């Protein structure tokens, strides 16, 4: 059996699944309990699990992540919500300097089984301070795992995997995907981190995408079919660990690659993929490795500009045609 649910409801279902599965899982954040989350992605959790395990915090991002870190070091498996991924900057010390380094600096004395959930990216006209896709920030930090699901089923499987993982995971929920729906099977779903999904086989070009860019990549591939270009679409699902094997094997077959990223251009994750593929697939290539990204600008608020500058289906199609010609 399966049912059609939203990406938003999948978040609550995944958290409920893990809160039920393991009594050491706790969930904290701003407006997450009584209000059910500002995106309504955590509705019903307070009612089922009570105010001890699902707890509202003040607007204190350092206090939130500090609480998660100290608790993870001493026997809990906390999940902490940072409402918008842009706000990671207000607690960046915890994200980049404390949480990822503690195990290493202590030579393995402490464990850090925690998850930072955060709503990432644009598309909702929220303006530059509530819209940036920042998955590449987290990817740059040794010691953080970085996950970004593209559909409701993966939200459950990957969030469960992140919570059960013994290392810190930053879990990027793409906020424009919250209302999108997908089929989800009944019962417990737990995936493995670091396994990409080939959503569509193809022979002319590999399109590598993540989160909100995945449905656009699939739509572009369908359009390209109409003009005789066979595109393989890979959903990376996690940036760390990175499933390079799937990408490299695919490009060795198709001989071309286009990455599609929502993060701004410079040092976006696509650059790392291009670098790896350039080194490891060079002799198989028949076209330039190409990146489609948001330009290197803060995201403007107005809908016309936001729509223009986030990578669109037509920009992906155009980029692929240029590579394949």
């Amino acid at each position, binding site marked *: 059996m399966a049912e059609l649910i939203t990406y938003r409801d999948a978040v609550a279902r995944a958290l409920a699944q893990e809160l039920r599965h393991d009594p050491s899982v706790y969930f904290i954040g701003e407006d997450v309990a009584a209000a059910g989350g500002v995106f309504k992605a955590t509705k019903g959790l307070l009612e089922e699990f009570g105010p001890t395990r699902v707890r509202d915090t003040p607007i204190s991002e*350092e*206090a939130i992540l*500090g609480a*998660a870190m100290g608790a993870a070091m001493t026997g809990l498996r906390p999940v902490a919500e940072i409402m918008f991924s842009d706000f990671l900057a207000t607690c960046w010390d915890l994200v980049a300097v404390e949480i990822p380094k503690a195990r290493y600096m*202590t030579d393995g004395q402490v464990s850090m089984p925690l998850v930072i959930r955060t709503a990432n990216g644009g598309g909702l006209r929220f303006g530059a301070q509530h819209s940036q896709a920042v998955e590449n920030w987290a990817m740059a930090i040794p010691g953080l795992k970085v996950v970004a699901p593209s559909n409701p089923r993966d939200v459950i499987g990957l969030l469960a995997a992140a919570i059960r993982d013994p290392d810190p995971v930053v879990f990027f929920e793409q906020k424009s995907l919250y209302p999108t729906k997908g089929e989800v099977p009944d019962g417990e779903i737990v995936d493995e981190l670091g396994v990409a999904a080939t959503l569509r086989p193809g022979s002319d070009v590999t399109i590598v995408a993540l989160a909100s860019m995945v449905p656009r990549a699939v739509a572009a591939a369908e359009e390209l079919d109409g003009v005789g270009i066979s595109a393989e679409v890979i959903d990376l699902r996690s940036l760390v660990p*990175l499933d390079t094997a799937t990408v490299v094997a695919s490009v060795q077959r198709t001989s071309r690659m286009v990455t599609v990223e929502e993060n701004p251009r410079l040092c976006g994750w696509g650059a790392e993929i291009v670098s790896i593929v350039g080194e490891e697939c060079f002799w198989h290539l028949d076209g330039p490795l190409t990146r489609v990204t948001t330009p290197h600008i803060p995201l403007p608020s107005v809908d016309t500009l936001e729509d223009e500058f986030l990578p669109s289906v037509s920009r992906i199609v155009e980029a692929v045609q240029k590579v394949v010609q």
Partner: protein
Amino acid sequence: MSTTELETTPRELSETEQARLALYQQVVRLRTFEERAYRLFMEGLVKGTSHLSLGMEAIAAGFGEAMRSDDYTFCTYRGHAHTLARGTPMAGVMGELLGRASGVCGGKGGSMHLTSVEHGVMGSYAIIGAHLPIANGAAWSAQARGSGQVAVCFFGDGTTNIGAFHEALNLAKVWMLPVVFVCENNLYMEYTAIGDVTAVEHPAADRASAYGLDSIIVDGNDPDAVYEVATTALERARTGGGPSLIEAKTYRHGGHSRADPGQYRPDEEVAAWLERDPMPTYRARLLRDGIDEALLTDIEQRAQAEIDAATEAARAAPPPELQAAYTNLWADGGSSWRN
């Protein structure tokens, strides 16, 4: 009662006397360690930087003695004393300072990141303010698990002006966490007098009321006073009474770090505080209160032997293998990020 009489007919020490001797022993051990660490830095055996607690040992000693063995310590980069005061062997701490494989962090932490989880030392944090919210997390975990453990978080006066201090105190009170925040006010934030950059006279105590906490100031150079205030705060935290914020007044004998001779401090101020050096003053008090000097001398000699052995062991230990740089990033023991 004369010393001679004690030597010939040693009387049984009361519980209080034993506790005070244990306090003195801690002060002496910490002093002995820090003096040796300073010497080894000067000899170039310790690379990087160091932040010594010389002159501030009574705070670590008082809390170390008052805490339960499973309580949590969170300290700053000035953390040698707090790490040792929880029972971490000197050899492991000295090994870490010297960058040896035998160090408590295998040489990957260094002076500023001493950690010994098996002794409740949950880390030394080198970003000002970072560990106050983290100590809350350990306290939250203890509360959730019903373990009765308390987290004690030590920090300097400079920390009271950073945001994390205020976020942490608020949350600790709202969640009634079993945590004790201890401000070691040594009057200087790094190179600047704390009074020159702080809106209130007592940087921690004057902020307590903003978080519904009592204003507590203690003489941080008096081991008895620290022990007493620690015992009260720990008991309060353990029995559901919530957090405490304690300001312990003290003074560093040296500068902020290895690079700092501390010349910005007026001579008369330094001289006045040296008069209040916790080690000789506590020694004199114990003698005055009838403790046999031989017991004190024995403590001092044992501390010397302990530091000599620890130094020897650390010097003899090898540096970490190059491969160690790739270990223990992840729980699987490695550092791989791709397949």
